[in-house]
């Protein structure tokens, strides 16, 4: 456990000392500033725009960060050959991978907390009360990011960094449309399309299940049961993806 912790701590330290971390945070800030401008321009209540755009920014910036650091971690270790000095020590490869995952997970948590704080402050500026309901959207977004991070580990355990990035991004995009695709496919006569959409629906993660933005922004009732099961779903999926990543990484030559 101590070894995993050391790797996690060191990974976190790396991202904090890395400039990429701050540039992505900067990107999130721009998105949020944009929401302010839009909020002032539109006729609807600006607070809704702030919440909608703010949550969207957390999700998109968070996803990009997750993909970026997730793909970067193995690639950098291999490219700079720092991995030789670590994996030649008495640690299992799964310990290395889990340590890395926890370290980057912590990085993403920090990013999510910082971005959330900014959205909260903005919201407070327009309506002087703390919008606690936003948590109902932010928490599932966080678990979605952890799942995306796991996918980026899985893909980079066997493919190049460019392909891994593409694959993970596809998972994000398709993951938000699987249920739409299935519905669309049921309306057509195309058997192949139907089969494919069913395959995607059952094997790829249904990320829409973790999207509670509409409920939160439009003050609709939130099913706690649905929230709970969505989170359990995300955690289980994450564990399975990480196990597959470990399975592949264990057999791989470190060249």
């Amino acid at each position: 456990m101590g070894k995993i912790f050391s790797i996690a701590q060191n990974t976190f330290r790396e991202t904090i000392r890395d400039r990429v971390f701050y540039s992505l945070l900067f990107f999130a800030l721009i998105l949020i500033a944009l929401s302010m401008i839009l909020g002032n321009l539109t006729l609807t209540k600006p607070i809704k725009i702030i919440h909608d755009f703010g949550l969207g920014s957390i999700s998109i910036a968070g996803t990009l960060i997750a993909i970026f650091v997730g793909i970067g971690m193995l690639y950098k270790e291999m490219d700079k050959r720092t991995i030789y000095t670590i994996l030649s020590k008495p640690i299992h490869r799964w310990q290395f991978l889990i340590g890395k995952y926890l370290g980057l997970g912590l990085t993403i948590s920090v990013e999510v907390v910082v971005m959330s704080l900014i959205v909260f402050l903005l919201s407070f500026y327009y309506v002087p009360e703390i919008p606690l309901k936003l948590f109902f959207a932010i928490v599932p977004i966080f678990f979605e990011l952890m799942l995306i991070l796991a996918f980026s580990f899985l893909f980079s355990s066997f493919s190049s960094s460019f392909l891994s990035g593409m694959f993970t991004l596809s998972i994000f995009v398709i993951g938000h449309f699987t249920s739409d695709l299935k519905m669309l496919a049921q309306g057509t006569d195309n058997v192949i399309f139907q089969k494919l959409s069913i395959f995607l629906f059952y094997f790829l993660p249904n990320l829409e299940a973790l999207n509670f933005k509409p409920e939160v922004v439009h003050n609709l009732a939130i099913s706690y049961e649905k929230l709970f099961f969505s989170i359990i779903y995300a955690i289980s999926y994450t564990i399975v993806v990480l196990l597959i990543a470990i399975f592949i990484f264990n057999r791989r030559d470190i060249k």
Partner: protein
Amino acid sequence: MSIKNAVEIQNLSKSFKTGLKKRFQALNNLSLTIKENEIFGYLGANGTGKTTTFKLMLGLIFPDTGDIKFWGVSFQDVKTRANIGYLPENPYFYSYLTGQESLNFTASMFDMKSNIKKERINEMLDLVNLQHAKDIQLRKYSRGMLQRLGIAQALVHDPKLLILDEPMSGLDPMGRKDMRNIILSCKDQGKTVLFSSHIISDVEMICDRASILSNGVLKKIITVDDIMDRDSNGWEITFKGNADTIESINSKNENFILKQLSAKDIFLLKAIDKKIAFEILNIIQKQGAELLSFVPLRISLEEIYIATTLKKDQ
């Protein structure tokens, strides 16, 4: 006490995928044993599989066939690595860490108590002469400083076996001397050292045994002391003498070659047989002639190396 084997490599083969259907055989059926407490030089030209062998030993890559055992335990058990200190070829470390942080991180991969850890890190910084740079980020280290840090991280947990991939590369003459001394002192502490190198004189100077690898095949194992002892190439004597000396030597009428060098009274004598060489030495001393040098003509490791490497594969 019988001599134990630190490393046993049995029928090790490794190929790499180089194309859709093509594979490159980097190591071919390699078997090698390294005894406990010996310094073993692993020689071979560029691209003959030295680094590949080391990576296999540390489980970084996996063999097609064969096994490697450390004190009887297979490399597949990660615990074997608790006894191994490894210096990779051109070692790289996290550049955002300082020297001390980096050693601390390395040490945390072993089960060490924190007070012992601190002490060891401090000792290592002294050993490799990096105490002055311990708070500098590694991105600002020079190539040789990184190599020194590499040795420190390989030794921090006091391993029984050291595997060093070209430990001398990137070091200045002083650094090379330090490295040789570190390796020798490791032997004194009972450790076993396996290292690859292109600098044959270093190997000749400190190794007990050496092997020569050529295109993934182990060609030869040499006991370095043997070639140092051997007088098969004869002996060479130079001396300052007069006609009397020459006469008494010639009267022996044995198998040797005597030559007068350009300086009139200096002579060079080559004898094949050790006994004759010593008899002549005796005469020179009895005659009161001045002995200038008396050296065995031995084959150098370099000659063996070149002869072995040049031989075309059958």
